[in-house]
């Protein structure tokens, strides 16, 4: 397993957001994390990326525990993410945004940057090239020099993915990547996620668009009120009585 959550729980003050959640993400998989609003999906993302510490249980990545490691070092270890409410560096160009993502695998420090050493210049060229490649990969080459906050919504979502890929992650976390997208855009997104996986990056995504989840994912984990209620192939989860109840309510109530 590339990512393993073992009995992970999280409470904020007296409120338990997540209770004893256990699941794993194997290398090369696309795993979907679903559940109604407020179920604790984004909380899981925030704990995996080090923004919150789990209250109990532990998370390990590539066999190493993640406890106590600050967010930027977790990114350096190979976990990158996008955000539910897009968080681009708005006043920078699309290309610059992706270049920022190249920070983890570049080394030029303060003095090298001031003196513009040969290594620094070579590194800058490598960053420039990598960033352009990634923009081409997500189909944003045309808008490379435009300010990120002037791009249309769908392009901003793809730019966030390119920026996350720039960190050269082993695991990519996508938080509602299809939110607010029209059908054609969602289709393109699914193609993109498949390409990412085929290039060797494992994907864990939170998504409400069931069409996308069921078509795209190898495995689906469903949580409700902070508890895992189902795990398995899309078909298994879709037909699981607890999942149906979580989304549609009980039959008696429906009557």
């Amino acid at each position: 397993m590339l990512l393993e959550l073992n009995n992970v729980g999280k409470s904020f003050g007296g409120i338990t957001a997540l209770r004893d959640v256990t699941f794993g993400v194997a290398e090369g998989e696309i795993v979907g994390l679903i559940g109604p609003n407020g179920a604790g999906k984004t909380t899981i993302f925030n704990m995996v990326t080090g923004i919150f510490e789990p209250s109990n249980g532990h998370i390990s990545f590539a066999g190493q525990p993640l406890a106590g490691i600050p967010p930027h070092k977790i990114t350096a270890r190979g976990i990158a993410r996008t955000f539910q409410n897009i968080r681009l560096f708005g006043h920078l160009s699309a290309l610059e945004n992706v270049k920022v993502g190249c920070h983890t695998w570049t080394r030029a420090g303060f003095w090298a940057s001031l003196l513009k050493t040969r290594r620094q210049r070579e590194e800058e060229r490598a960053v420039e090239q990598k960033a352009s490649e990634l923009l081409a990969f997500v189909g944003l080459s045309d808008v490379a020099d435009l300010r990120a906050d002037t791009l249309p919504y769908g392009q901003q979502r793809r730019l966030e993915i390119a920026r996350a890929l720039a960190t050269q992650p082993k695991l990519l976390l996508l938080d509602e990547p299809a939110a607010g997208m029209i059908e054609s855009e969602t289709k393109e997104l699914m193609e993109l996620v498949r390409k990412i996986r085929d290039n060797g990056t494992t994907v864990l995504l939170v998504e409400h668009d069931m069409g996308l989840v069921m078509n795209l994912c190898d495995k689906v984990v469903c949580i409700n009120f902070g508890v895992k209620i189902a795990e398995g192939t899309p078909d298994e989860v879709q037909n699981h009585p607890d999942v149906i109840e979580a989304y549609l309510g009980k039959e008696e109530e429906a009557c």
Partner: protein
Amino acid sequence: MDLFNPYNLQVITFIVLNGILAISIYITLATGQLSLGHAGFMSIGAYVASILTKQADVPLIFALLLGGLIAGVIALLIGAPTLKLHGLYLAIATLGFGEVVRVIFLNMEITNGALGITGLKSIGSTLYDWLKVTGLTGDSFGLSVLQMKAVLTLLFLLLLFGLVLFLTLRLHRSRIGRAFEAIKADETAAKAMGLPVAYYKMLAFIIGAVLAGFCGGLFAHITTTITPDDFNYHKVVEILSFAVIGGSEIVWGPLFGAFILTTLPEVLRVLAEYKMIMYGAIMVLVMAFRPHGLIGTDTFAKLFDRRRKQAARQAEEGM
């Protein structure tokens, strides 16, 4: 207007000095940190450099560099506990720091309390002495000794300013500059991209402090007299205004702000007692119509856009 009038030369010198100060506040603001400690760092640099040249006969350039360096070390020490603070909280903490520094200098023996340090050897005199060694004097250029000293001071500052601006622009176009910009835009996203945010904020804070300390040393050796009151709350506001009036998105903003705010009082001198009213009114108008400062990223975009359109029109006409 006689350009070589020592008074005019000194005004231009102060524009250049304030230009370096503007870069100092710009770099700290580039990571989104509102620091009001720049006058404090400036005073540390000023006193360190002054004491070194006056009492220990340290060569001017080393004294200036040491002044900046020690301001940087102090920044490291006070940055450790305060840089966790954001926005106005950081502003208040650094403002407090500046006041503490001022009161310490006011009460120390070596700084001569409220009377301050006087009779420093000016940059102009030091440079003029060097020039005399080569056999040149003011007469060689048809200038008086006073004019020559003023010209030398200005040239020295222009050289330093050019160097600082050059390095700042270099830094801006590097991995470090990108990290600063990303942190200013969104700290959480910056962390998620693998940026050690605390390190970069500290770095920007220290660079700002070193430059401010360096400016302090320069200031002391231009005016030849310093007192703790030269670096009080008014100085804080003055430095911050460079960035507020000029804009803080790109380095040209604070530089333009420094230029305007240093020139304006001189230009408005003809208005005599109405000077400050006019000065205030201009500030209010700028804030009303350009709340993000006079110069922003859009300023140059528009300029280039217009040029591009012109070029396109010319190309069309040519066809």
